[in-house]
């Protein structure tokens, strides 16, 4: 089986995010970039499926030179090949514009299954996987915590937790799955893995290599635009409840929630 994973680099979740002087982007000077945590589940799941069924694992990333580091991390975990779409015109796109780049890249290799993170924890869009499934016209299975490939490798059965229930879906391959926490525990790259990764193929592509023009992708190819970024509403400093005993503190709190906050 050929399994692809689309990865995104995001600011480490420890980062204090600050708005830049233009008001529509963030300050990137001191950011440590890491692989989106949900994408790691996709890499791990792809490796497990390959270990059981054979095949090849290919990881795809779009973005500037720094993305190579996350692609190498995936290779060090065990992926076989990487594709890096490194073209400034592809940056800053909305979900559909970004999915167009990914679609063009993945169409160049045969695949049975594609993994994307269920969302990237930067813009929290939760759209690129769905848009990619539309462009490729393959079934979409979102926010998945369990993946089972059929013995004849033509179908996949997945588990999807939703509000108050769990749905089990089955569909035909090829398909696109977006990954949720709980799917697996991603492995760390081993030292031999890191050494091997240096020699694994990592293909750099420009838009022209993918048959795309600059007006189809990136900001130019986007429908959704940012009007402004704002900091979250300030929460005013809270009230620490002062009293002698836990009993008194608890009683005061419940009284305040009822009479002052009026939410009980």
């Amino acid at each position, binding site marked *: 089986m050929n399994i692809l994973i689309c990865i995104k680099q995001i600011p480490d979740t420890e980062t204090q*995010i600050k708005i830049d002087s233009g008001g529509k982007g963030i300050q990137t000077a001191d950011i440590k970039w890491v692989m989106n945590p949900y994408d790691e589940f996709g890499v791990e799941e792809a490796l497990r499926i390959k270990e059981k069924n054979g095949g090849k694992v290919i990881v795809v990333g779009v973005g500037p030179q720094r993305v190579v580091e996350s692609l190498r991390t995936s290779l060090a975990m065990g992926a076989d090949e990487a594709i890096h779409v490194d073209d400034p015109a592809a940056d800053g796109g*909305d979900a559909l514009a970004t999915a167009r780049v990914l679609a063009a890249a993945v169409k160049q290799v045969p695949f049975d299954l594609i993994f994307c993170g269920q969302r990237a924890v930067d813009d*929290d869009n939760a759209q690129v996987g769905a848009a990619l499934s539309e462009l490729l016209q393959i079934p979409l299975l979102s926010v998945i915590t369990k993946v089972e490939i059929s013995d004849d490798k033509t179908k996949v059965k997945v588990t999807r937790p939703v509000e108050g229930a769990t749905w089990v879906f089955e569909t035909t391959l090829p398909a696109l799955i977006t990954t949720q926490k709980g799917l697996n525990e991603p492995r760390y790259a081993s030292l031999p893995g890191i050494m091997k990764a240096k020699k694994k193929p990592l293909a750099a592509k420009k838009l022209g290599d993918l048959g795309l023009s600059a007006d189809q992708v990136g900001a130019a190819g986007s429908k*959704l*635009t940012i009007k402004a970024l704002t900091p979250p509403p300030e*929460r005013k400093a809270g009230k620490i409840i002062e009293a002698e005993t*836990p009993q008194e503190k608890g009683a005061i709190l419940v009284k305040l*929630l009822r009479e002052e906050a009026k*939410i*009980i």
Partner: protein
Amino acid sequence: MGKGILIIAEQRGGTLRKISLELVSEGRRLADQSGQKVAAVVLGHQLGEEPKKLAAYGADTIYVADAPELKHYTPEAYTAVLSDLIKSQEPDIVIGGASQQGKELAAKLAARLETGLAMDCVGLRLEGDLLIAKRPIYAGKLFAEVMCETARPQMATGRPNVFAIQEPDASKAAEIVTVEVAIKPEDLRTTLVEELADQTGKVDLTEATCIVSGGRGMKEADNFVILEKLAGIIGATVGASRSAVDAGWRPQSDQVGQTGKVVNPNLYVACGISGAIQHLAGMGSSKVIVAVNKDPDAPIFQKADYGIVGDLFEVVPVLEEEFKKIM
């Protein structure tokens, strides 16, 4: 003026979900500002009278797509029916729920219709015909105002428990329109094998109006029973910090934060949670935050409306008793 606002309603087992009422109410408010009509669409099978309920919340027209293939949600079949409806009706704005089902469906639809989608919005307003959607990014560390100027329909999904439900007016009636359902075989590749109902019956964190959460200070899995008891009294859902989940004390589905669920309750009670930046991002938009923590310097107190510095194992049972007196 645009050709109206379409709300994608959501039902489960033939019953409309709360998010549908929230969004029809919000659609009505936007429509009243701009002199437009609001339509809602319900997909399912053997829906009976249920879709008509949306009239009382402000829908002028209710489209009903009722077919055996739509009995249970699948992304391909639902997308196919909705994209056909949108192409024929040409609404100016389409709004769905930022629920598990709604987010997936809206994302597929926006791609198929080649338009922009503002996901998981906490505020919607109109500037003329232009929908300005406010949405948290970085799990709430920032907010973005986004818009779609060059394509139609303008699409958004609304976060549960944000948009107020209008007082239902039983005297209002809506035009009921039956949607012709024609689904191609390739849209039926995905099938539901089984649906397992959550036996606990607890409200999902993303839709809960009240949450009691525990962190590292809970010390072990069994201690969460005191949070469960408190939650039972006040009708809350129990959540957890990442450290409690990573320690194996709670399931992944309970995790609140940037890499878990982003929540928006009226009351959030954080017990033994220090308040890592990722956790604060995920619960920072709660209307009222209460923190119980031994450490007076814990960052959670910077976000909390009310704080109790003390041992949660002493404080939580007191809260349970005090709430019992008034509930």
